[in-house]
């Protein structure tokens, strides 16, 4: 059994409950214990940084302090939470003045932090802490007919030191292959989906999403797997908007990689939250996946 503190992040309560449920189910199947961090708060994301950087660091530091008390690596499923928590950790270590201010603010809440927590992304855990043999031994469903575009997005490979190549990451490719699915080349795999600017600059961001979908389609992917809630929401919930805007006709399901793992492990559809996916994967899974 391996133990981790788990930081779900706001998206798991909101747009992407299926990432949360599938991650927990897959972890269980792999003897990984994800212990949710009690009373965690929002990481603050980029917006808070821009408005008040110190407050943004303190937001994260509260979570880090809670995790430090427990002592395990802190695992985030959202790439943005992962990046923001890591950045607070780095700044805490590199800038004595920031460290002093964070320490003072935390004390107002009766907390302290010493900078010892290691922040991880859940992809890193499933791809690197678990051997591919272990993954293969859990596979019950044949995915060999499924062609998958592995989409990392940008932020998962940003915190330094990165657990994977910054521009041509491989961990999700390897993991998908261990599940028995075919990985198609996906040159835009580490490019940005536009993130939350979909709300304020939709014209621009729809264009970015279109390129990502086009690139997956051009490489004959049946579906895309992703590791970040923002990427999933943009590619899935706004796929229709892309089609309307550009008169395209995309119909590419976008699954969380943990959902695909769950499918391979034979975990039921409901637990994996496949009904939450807006571009339904049902048809493709029915025709291409042999149980």
């Amino acid at each position, binding site marked *: 059994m391996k133990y981790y503190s788990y930081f779900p992040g706001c998206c798991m309560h909101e*747009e992407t409950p299926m990432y949360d449920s599938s991650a927990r189910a897959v972890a269980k199947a792999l003897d990984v214990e994800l212990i949710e961090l009690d009373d965690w708060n929002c990481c603050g994301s980029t917006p*808070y940084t821009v*408005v008040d950087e110190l407050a943004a660091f*303190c937001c994260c530091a509260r979570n880090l302090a809670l995790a430090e008390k427990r002592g395990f690596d802190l695992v985030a499923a959202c790439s943005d939470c992962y990046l923001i928590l890591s950045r607070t950790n780095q700044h805490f270590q590199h800038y004595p003045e920031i460290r002093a201010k964070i320490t003072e603010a935390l*004390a107002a809440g009766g907390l302290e932090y010493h900078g010892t927590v290691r922040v991880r992304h859940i992809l890193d855990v499933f791809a690197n802490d678990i051997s591919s043999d272990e993954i293969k031994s859990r596979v019950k469903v044949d995915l060999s007919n499924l062609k998958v575009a592995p989409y990392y997005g940008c932020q998962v490979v940003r915190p330094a030191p990165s657990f994977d190549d910054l521009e041509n990451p491989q961990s999700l490719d390897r993991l998908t292959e261990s599940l028995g699915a075919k990985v198609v080349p996906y040159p835009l795999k580490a490019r940005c989906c536009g*993130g939350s600017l979909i709300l304020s600059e939709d014209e621009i961001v729809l264009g970015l999403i279109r390129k990502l979908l086009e690139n997956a389609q051009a490489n004959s992917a049946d579906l895309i797997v992703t590791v970040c809630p923002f990427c999933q929401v943009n590619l899935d919930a706004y796929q229709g*908007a892309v089609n309307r805007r550009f008169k395209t006709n995309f119909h590419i399901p976008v699954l969380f990689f943990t959902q695909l793992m769950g499918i391979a492990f034979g975990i039921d559809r409901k637990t994996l939250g496949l009904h939450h996916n*807006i571009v339904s994967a049902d048809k493709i899974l029915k025709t291409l996946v042999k149980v």
Partner: protein
Amino acid sequence: MVTAKVHGVNDFIQEISAMPGGEKINLCIQCGTCSASCPNANKMDYTPRELIALARAGMRDEVLSSNTMWLCLSCYLCTVRCPRGIVPTYIMHALEHLSMRHYRTRPRVRTARLYRLFSDTVHAFGMIPRLGCMMAYFLQTNPLKALRMIRPALGLLTHGRMPIKAHKLEPEPMKQLKAILDKAEAMGGL
């Protein structure tokens, strides 16, 4: 006056250098790798490289009133590739912050409103409830655009992905978070 500015020693550059991640702005060799890597460079008033050049020339108004930093997606590709180890992404964040402080919210930079709203919500709930935030944002900025966004939002809603009831921190942890954030704010930033 102008010559003093082009030497790069000006208040503006000092202000930026004093912010975390902004220290290395003077190492920029104007190679343009950041601009070539940026997915939004062609939509920006000035590309990231140009923005750095303007900042080093002390052209505060031009920089802070531009849309450049507000189109930054925080994808960090410029940062990955910069040969001088500069973090243009952090410079963008620093400039957004300065622009917000000095210019308040300009109607053309909707992202500023969005960011302000998100951070206020974190302060109030410890979380970001999406439905409320999206509605508040579109009402504040562009109700017409809300019509365009209604289908994606409905898609999320009908697939159980936009809870009506906002998730909040429990009262005790919320009190703790608030004490920490109030203290941070009282310290007046970094």
